[in-house]
């Protein structure tokens, strides 16, 4: 006989209603046949998901769901939703639970609230817009529009950028740390992980870099490509920005003898930065475009539910990438009137993206990676035994 749970269940419709509101409206159709767990390519053999999550969700067992790493092992392939005989769309329910997790594990109740509804979007964008505007007012060179050659540092000098972004990134990392910590604690209270953490992290990281899980998806097979392009494109763009900043500060501190913004295009440093930046931008814009086409196009049903968290993240990311590319184009074409405006928007969106990361869907990388590491440490993530072996 299994141990009886210490807590007595007092059913309440509350949490189930929240899942329903967050995109899991098919939730109650589940009749626990277990097809979903059988067809899932990435669910473990023992206590597989998403069947158990479906009934916990129906019963509104919030504590169980929030401490359940399996919610994040799910990559929304939606093979379960395709094969569900009742149309309960477990993939969507899992996505809805994850969206609620962003809220639940948020370290700042204010941020959690602002991120939860489209009506607060304006507030979220106004803050960075005002901040960047303030920095421009203070730091821009006089008549920066007319200075030739046209350079964006004339409007927003490197130091201003760093002053605006570095605190935002520190805030973001701090919040992320706290969220991951409380998530990790919940995971361990549920299933204590005693295995060494470093090998698990390395193994999980390799898995993510190779997109091992997403490549097993059948219904959502195209997502492996679009996510891969987006992820590597984004990494390349972050690398580009970091390289420029490093080169700048290296010059300031006299480590190198040239100033990045003054060297010509033929300089190897500049060539590398431009190559990585442009390739990254093309990859990222292609990736996000593919995601948008799939999520909002004719195949949207297969992609699964797209909640506000998804739309918000896609929107911010897309605008940030597109404005970045346009800014480059306008600079090369020497159209300052458009270029500086677009660059301003670019800065606002990049700041939004980074500053709000732990409260937005961007945080999926935190929770999913944490869950993957925990799964490795608790042997929940071993490869599924197939008929072939």
């Amino acid at each position, binding site marked *: *006989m*299994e*141990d*009886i*749970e210490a*807590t*007595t*269940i*007092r*059913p*309440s*419709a509350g949490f*189930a*209603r929240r899942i*329903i509101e967050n995109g899991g409206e098919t939730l*109650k*159709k589940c*009749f*626990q046949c277990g097809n979903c767990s059988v067809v899932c390519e990435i669910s473990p053999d023992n206590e597989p998901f998403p069947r*158990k999550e479906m*009934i*916990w969700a*129906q*019963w*509104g*067992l919030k504590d*169980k769901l929030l401490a359940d790493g399996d919610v994040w092992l799910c990559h929304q392939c939606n093979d379960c939703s395709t094969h569900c005989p*009742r149309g309960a769309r477990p993939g969507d329910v899992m996505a809805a639970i994850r969206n609620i997790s962003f809220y639940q594990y948020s370290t700042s109740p204010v941020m959690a609230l602002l991120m939860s509804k489209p009506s607060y979007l304006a507030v979220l964008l106004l803050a960075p817009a005002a901040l960047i505007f303030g920095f421009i007012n203070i730091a821009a060179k006089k008549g920066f529009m007319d200075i030739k050659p046209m350079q964006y540092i004339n409007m927003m000098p490197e130091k201003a950028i760093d002053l605006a972004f570095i605190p935002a990134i520190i805030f973001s990392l701090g919040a992320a740390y706290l969220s991951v910590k409380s998530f990790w604690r919940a995971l361990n209270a549920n299933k204590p992980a005693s295995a060494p953490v470093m090998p698990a992290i390395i193994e999980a990281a390799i898995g993510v870099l190779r997109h091992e899980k997403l490549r097993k998806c059948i219904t959502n097979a195209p997502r492996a490509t679009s996510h891969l392009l987006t992820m590597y494109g984004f990494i390349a763009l972050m690398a580009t920005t970091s390289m420029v900043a490093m080169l700048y500060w290296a010059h300031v501190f006299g480590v190198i003898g040239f100033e990045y913004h003054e060297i010509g295009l033929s300089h190897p440093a500049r060539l590398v930065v431009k190559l990585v930046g442009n390739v990254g931008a093309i990859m990222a814009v292609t990736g996000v475009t593919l995601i948008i086409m799939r999520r909002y196009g004719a195949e949207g049903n297969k992609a699964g539910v797209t909640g506000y968290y998804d739309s918000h993240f896609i929107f911010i990311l897309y605008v940030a990438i597109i404005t970045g590319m346009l800014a480059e184009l306008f600079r090369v074409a020497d159209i300052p009137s458009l270029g500086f405006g677009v660059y301003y928007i670019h800065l606002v969106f990049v700041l939004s993206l980074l500053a709000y990361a732990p409260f937005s869907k961007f945080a999926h990388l935190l929770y999913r990676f944490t869950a993957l590491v925990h799964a490795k440490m608790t042997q929940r993530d071993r490869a599924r035994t197939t008929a072939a072996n």
Partner: protein
Amino acid sequence: MVDEAKPVKTGVYICSGCDIGASVDIEQLKKVAVSEAKVPVCKTHEFFCGADGVGVIKNDIVTDGVNRVVIAACSGRVNYDVFDFGEDLMLERVDLREKVAWSHEPNHEDTLMLAQDYLRMGIAKMKSMEPVVPTLDTMDETILVIGGGVTGITAARNAALAGHRVHLVEKTARLGGWANAFSRTLPKKSPFTTPEENDIAQRAREVETDPFITIHLNTTIKSIAGSPGMFDATLLNGKEITVRAGSIVMATGWKPYDMSKLAHLGAGLPDVVSAVEFEQMAAGGSIKRPSDGKPATRVLFVQCAGSRDENHLPYCSSVCCSVSLKQAAYVRQSDPDATATIVYKDMRTPGEMELFYKQIQQDPGVFMTKGDVRKVEREGDELIVTVDNSLLGGSVKMAADMVVLATGLVPTTYDPTVTVDKPADQMTDRDKFKVGKAPILNLTYRKGSELPDLKYGFADSHFICFPYETQRTGIYAAGCVRHPMDMSTAINDAAGAALKAIQCIKLGAQGKAVHPRAGDQSYPEFYLHRCTQCKRCTEECPFGTLDEDEKGTPKPNPTRCRRCGVCMGACPERIINFKNYSVPMIASMIKSMEIPDEFSGKRRAIAFICENDAMPAVDMAGIMRLKYDPEIRVIPLRCLGSLNLVWIADALSAGVDGILMVGCKHGDDYQCHFIKGSELANYRMGKVQETLSRMMLEPERIQVESLAISEYQRLPEIINKFMAALRAMEPNPNKGF
């Protein structure tokens, strides 16, 4: 009716179509009819079932005075409409197609011998057949409906609408039965998503105002005597009155399983109620805890409470899940924050109720899980239900204000408290049939006062094939006394049973049998001068047809009879025979076979085959062109239970090497159309095998096999194995005597 004055003139018509001509030499067949049997008319045609072929036969009947027709062509199971020359003409079909041409090697000597034997047997059968004289009785057209619940009143109303007078007997003071207690009813019409207004009062009113229906309230049945068409029911309501009825619909319904046996599920605690109690509570307008009168906003339903449980009711009552879903809807409507929790073994919502389940499932305030309820306890102000093996993850505890036990349905016919105070070996048939049965019908039948049941006390005769039929002709069960069902099914059931009851009266008036030999006008005749009062016919009749006088002589009741011939098979004196199915008839068929001598290397065996299921399987084997041993001859019987042991003796003394009997599956889930015919055959065979040993013959020469209608592919294996076993033995030493 055949004019007795007319001389018998037999015509034999041999068809050569459908591969028959290509398989056997038709001329050799003709010799059997013309030279051996010397029939006056024998014709061949390549297409007897065509207009031309039928014309030939019709012409002979009209102009040549042929009054007995033997058609040697296809199986009697096909083209019966083409070869229909009226009820008065005696017709025999010899199957040369399915049982010869299609299942044996063409133009082989053995195939020809088989065809010739079948023709010989057909002609011999025709020779010993006599015209059937139907037993006509005056049938009363009134229908007696027992039980005034939804099934009973629907049956009564349907019968009345069809023009029959009805006596409706209800033991309580009010029509409507259990349905009177229902707040709302399960959905009966598309889209089957919401509980419906309970219309039982309206239904009762229709019956109360129907001039064709006489209602007897507060009435029980003292006795029912007679037989279909002439039942005399003595009703008891302070005084006795006797009414006559042609047939009976039994709709006495159900009672809930005794909740006091469910202490492990909390029965006895004040806030643990049965589904029926909860329904009454909801009908009363408010869902309150009996203990303190506070509204119950958290209600937990325990499904299969004492059902599908070997210690209680082993069966599924099929409605409890739907009822709990309906009651969950009551809970949810009582308060927007109320919750209904359902713990089930399996959610079973048959038919359209699945749509209802889907609908209720959508409510966020309804929680369901599979699980086994281990215990229900009171802790402080609430009930704590411990559930093992739940889908929520092992064992869990759940809190509730009230627990509803969804108890199953027990037929009113079942009453385990009824016993007979006698040792088992002194019990008469009537005593045995009393045990465990609630006295409802109080039949005066020799075989017992109540209906024999299949399982768990439900009055039924053959669940799948013959709904509404009981094991007593003219008494049809409907509603929950037949098997557990919801109201909408019960309403359909009532209509079905009413139609059966009407059919019984109508067929009876024409001297015809009811299901499964509907339309058969033959009836067993008893040559009572030679009766030894052994009572075997009376005891073995599956339908309680025969009563007996004080000496034990059988007293026939023709309208109770289903014409299976079990009595004919039972009778050691062979005094029970039908005009067109008799002990001498089958014996003459056996004798007509040609038995090759022991030096020929050929064997002969007979397969007695039940014509209801096994015979179609034999035909199907032919249609599928399955080949089997040609040295066995098939003789169809009305029921394996009609097999008289004298045929075995006849066959063995004629030199037949072995006898195979193929009948329906028997046992608890029997498929016999006459309930226990194949079981009886099996029992009798045990005795024959003993006799064989004494005769120094191997008991293995006689085998009994069961075959379902769908198992035609097994037939060649059964026959070939049997024949191989026979060939391993010496030939029957009686050959040539």
